[in-house]
């Protein structure tokens, strides 16, 4: 069948069961848009290409599918870079299609030409420039395969206009084989038996779960594993929801803003089982002091994650779910009772660390941001999908909203990208129309992609934005307070917009709370509205996120409130 490049692209989208595309048109993708009109694929017209990528990211995380974006060449392409970099750091499967100037103009500094393949080489899992329409179907197939397999990630395809608008023979359902790419899903059983031996002799074990649990769908297996062996669990920011937040074995998040017991237990454990994590610096603090008494088991599908940041006793390359399935089978014959007796003092010790209750905060006559997130948790019964911006809002959401299920916490973990949460919430809401989706934002970061209000309204998405409004770029202000003699250089933002009027200008509902007693009524009204809602909580201006480990310090050295 002879089809144009644009038609071939859409055919492969259909083969890959793409139902939604986030994008923004332009001259070099106009042929693709023209053909997209004839299909049942839903196109979400964003207001800025960065929003398209974050929305596709949120869609991918909420649905477990590959997120797809379509943008034009030049500025359309460069605007996607931040979103791509964020998805790359967090291993989120995306396929990003960029238009490109016709092949005979490439390299001529043509109008709206950039070398987007060159620009994104280091922040994609892989990328392609398709110069011949005959390669297009194969390349798009490969892109989807690469994006979702192994350690997932964003893949970019640059398609020149004279590839999308010329015809070629379309061969459906091409098989993908990439000879140099064979991710290891099945772990080495010999290594796993060594892990079981270590578990059997360990007196102070800790499980450290990361985003790999969520990506591989291993939450159930992890829960079974930890409960069967009664091993306490901590998680990275990306791992929240991978283990039930309400389980007594859950110790909270680890790291710079981790809980007291998570940081202490990791520092004093004799066995640390890291699963689907990459021991990022925000987790480890000073690496020499990190888990210095422990043997470390590290499970990850990406071999480069292993031994990158910390020395590892038993490296295991494999998919988290496959690995935990095998481990669960191997631990079945273990006699658990003597193990539990042996670990009783350890569990008691963790309880005394827990009793310090370092997430307690003082209620005053101004709204505490922690209180807002706590009430949000209670009113949504922990069932909402929470996206966040980056900074204090993100950390409070991570600390005070207790995630019981995977795919419910969506945040820019690795890149730490302000402006992520709101477009990600749009994508999550499209993936999960049945869910309450809330973006926990700051007054600074919400302004970075506020233009997507129009997108939310255009598609009638009842996304809820909770702004913790302190008039500051709060996390940087916190660092300035603690480490820069309170010199608040360029962090004061107290001439922000009136968020109620802003909401109304877009046709959304705007609500505000300025006193603690108004928090619950505003949340109730906002959450029950069928509309897009901005809830503006005017919170304590100089509240800090605690515990806090100063950058580069051991994670036992926590500043407490």
């Amino acid at each position, binding site marked *: 069948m002879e089809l144009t490049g644009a038609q071939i692209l859409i055919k492969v989208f259909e083969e890959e069961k793409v139902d939604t595309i986030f994008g923004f048109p332009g001259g070099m993708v106009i042929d693709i848009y023209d053909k997209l009109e004839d299909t049942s694929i839903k196109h979400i017209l964003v207001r800025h290409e960065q929003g398209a990528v974050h929305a596709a990211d949120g869609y991918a995380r909420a649905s477990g599918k590959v997120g797809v974006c379509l943008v034009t060449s030049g500025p359309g392409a460069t605007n996607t870079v931040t979103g791509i970099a964020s998805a790359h750091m967090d291993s989120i499967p995306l396929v990003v299609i960029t238009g490109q100037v016709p092949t005979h103009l490439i390299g001529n500094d043509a109008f709206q030409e950039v070398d987007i393949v*060159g620009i994104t080489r280091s922040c994609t899992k892989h990328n392609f420039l398709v110069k011949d329409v005959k390669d297009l179907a194969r390349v798009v197939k490969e892109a989807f395969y690469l994006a979702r397999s192994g350690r997932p990630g964003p893949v970019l395809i640059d398609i020149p206009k004279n590839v999308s608008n010329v015809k070629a023979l379309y061969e459906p359902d091409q098989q993908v084989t990439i000879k140099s790419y064979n991710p290891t899903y099945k772990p080495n059983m010999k290594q796993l038996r060594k892990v079981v031996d270590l578990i059997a002799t360990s007196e102070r074990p800790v499980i450290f779960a990361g985003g790999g649990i969520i990506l591989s769908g291993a939450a159930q297996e992890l829960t079974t594993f930890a409960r069967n062996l009664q091993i306490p669990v901590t998680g990275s920011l990306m791992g929240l929801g991978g283990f039930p937040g309400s389980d007594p074995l859950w110790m909270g998040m680890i790291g710079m803003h981790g809980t007291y017991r998570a940081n202490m237990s990791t520092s004093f454990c004799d066995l640390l089982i890291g699963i689907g994590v990459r021991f990022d610096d925000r987790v480890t603090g000073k690496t020499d002091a990190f888990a210095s008494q422990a043997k470390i088991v590290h499970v990850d599908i990406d071999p*480069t994650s292993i031994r990158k940041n910390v020395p590892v006793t038993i490296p295991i390359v494999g998919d988290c779910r496959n690995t935990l399935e095998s481990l669960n089978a191997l631990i079945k014959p273990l006699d658990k009772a003597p193990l539990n007796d042996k670990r009783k003092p350890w569990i008691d010790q963790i309880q005394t660390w827990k009793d310090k209750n370092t997430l307690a905060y003082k209620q005053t006559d101004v709204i505490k941001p922690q209180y807002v997130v706590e009430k949000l948790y209670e009113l949504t019964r922990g069932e909402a999908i929470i996206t966040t911006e980056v900074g204090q809002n993100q950390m409070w959401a991570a600390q005070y909203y207790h995630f019981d299920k995977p795919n419910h916490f969506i945040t820019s973990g690795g890149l730490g990208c302000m402006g992520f949460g709101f477009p990600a919430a749009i994508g999550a809401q499209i993936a999960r129309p049945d869910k309450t989706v809330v973006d926990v934002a700051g007054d600074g970061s919400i302004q970075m992609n506020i233009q997507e209000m129009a997108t939310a309204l255009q598609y009638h998405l009842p996304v809820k934005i909770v702004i913790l409004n302190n008039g500051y770029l709060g996390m940087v202000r916190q660092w300035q307070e603690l480490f820069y003699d309170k010199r608040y250089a360029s962090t004061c933002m107290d001439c922000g917009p009136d968020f109620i009027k802003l909401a109304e200008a877009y046709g959304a509902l705007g609500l505000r709370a300025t006193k603690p007693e108004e928090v619950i009524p505003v949340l109730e009204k906002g959450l029950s509205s069928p509309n897009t809602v901005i809830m503006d909580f005017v919170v304590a201006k100089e509240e800090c996120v605690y515990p806090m480990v100063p950058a580069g310090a051991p994670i036992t050295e926590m500043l407490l409130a």
Partner: protein
Amino acid sequence: MNEEKHILTMLVDNEPGVLSRVVGLFSARGYNIESLVVAPTIDPLVSRITLVTNANLPEIEQIEKQLRKLINVVKLRDLSGKNAVKREMALICVKAKPENRAEILRIVSIFRCKVVDTGLEHYIIEVSGNEDKINAFINLLKPMGIKKIARTGALALFREPN
């Protein structure tokens, strides 16, 4: 930990941008490249990159894993040990005044290399061998005055098992 010299050889897809991915990986992650040689193999779809880097043990493990992760890298091997043949080549343009010409030719014959171009006042000499040999050769020519030098990086092949 001690840094050591490693010769990495890899087969890569012979496509535009592949070298940039390899080199970009080194610069982005702060590894160094001491020398680099790239050319197609007998399979026109495959090129061989031979790269020399200085790294300690954890670093070289990361470098190899990162390189293997690149989709276009088909095969990679560390040829630093004794089981590989290693050669470099240099073209050296040396001043050849009448009083030095005989001495230069004597050195050339001792080192079993050859003169590939000659003029009234210069020789261009082609030398190949391991790094030490080429360094020694250059040192001997220095007193005559070296005008220009062009040097390849190391090439290496694993010795076939007998």
